[in-house]
């Protein structure tokens, strides 16, 4: 199963990003291969529609679960439509590596 975590940087030592559509990177963790890949959010500075674009990216990545600080209404609508689980986590000091430890 693939889980995406929003991240402020592109390494496992980077801290967790509370924003979804405006999050800097998406860390995609595959529980079968135990590998984490980082994808840059190309729409981080978009004038509008960043949430929708981020949700599209999740569908393309084949994610089934997303961990982020919050989800906007447009992103939520699309993610719900494709049955992607949204997990809200509110600790913005934790690193990606620590979250990966928690979920694996």
């Amino acid at each position: 199963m693939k889980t995406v975590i929003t991240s402020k940087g592109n390494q496992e030592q980077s801290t967790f990003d509370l924003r979804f559509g405006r999050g800097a990177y998406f860390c995609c963790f595959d529980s079968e291969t135990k590998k984490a890949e980082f994808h840059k959010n190309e729409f981080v500075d978009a004038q509008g529609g960043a949430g929708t674009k981020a949700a599209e990216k999740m569908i393309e990545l084949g994610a089934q679960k997303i961990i982020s600080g919050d989800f906007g209404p447009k992103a939520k609508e699309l993610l719900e439509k494709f049955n992607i689980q949204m997990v809200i986590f509110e600790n913005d000091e934790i690193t990606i590596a620590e979250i990966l430890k928690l979920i694996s």
Partner: protein
Amino acid sequence: MSYKIAIASGKGGTGKTSVSVQLFHELSKSNSCILVDCDVEEPNDHLFFPNARQKEEEVIMQLVANIDEDKCTYCRNCVSYCEFNAISVIPPVNYAKIDASLCHTCGACLVACSDDAIFENGFEIGKMRTHKVNQQILMEGLLKIGSPMQTSLIRTLKKKTPQNTDFIIYDAPPGTSCPVVETISDSDYIILVTEPTPFGLHDLKLTVDLVKDMNLPFGIIINKSGSEFNKVHEFIKHEHLDLLAEIPFSKAFAKNYAQGNISEFDDSKNKTIFSGIRTTLLKKKMLHD
């Protein structure tokens, strides 16, 4: 030919509406006049005309793009054309949709699509109301709650305003962004209403920059004057700007405003001030014609 005056401010609450309504009342004495409330997010000019009779109401639509999923080949060409991220096409799951609230009706996706899968249909962005006030007309735009299309609604409202009148007064929304630019864009004269406070000055500077950039003639009204803060006066003097009038702060006026009573407000001071503004505007109109 009608002479178009826009009332703008930058900062909210400086007195755009009170100036617009009083000016409408004053100009109506000698000329035909239409007041257009372009503050479409919360139009309130009509509150000051309890005797106004609503003549008509029209739904304002905007054409937004739609995707016919039967024809779509999920090539994503339209997605790359869309400046506003309104289109979602996800090929692996055969998903294609356009978010009406993000679509700006630019038509780029229609050009991008070679499969004839994109079509446009109407989407309500708000309403336009026309009221009759004595012999004059009051028009207002009402944005549909949740719609971000203020600018588009204001554009339509202005297009539908009859031009066979001596004066058109546009009561602008606050700020200096697109809706304000749309409201003031084709005006013959702009009145900037400010107040003698640090916020009033800060936003006045922004608005002066905007109208200078748009190359539009303007004058300033200092509303609620009489405070010790004199930096607005200094700024106007230093920049050699045109000070049209000063309206002293008055508790009695504020009380009447709160009761919706300003068009008939019987204060000799205000009357003198607005008749002075009328004389100035009539001269400007004559030169313009």
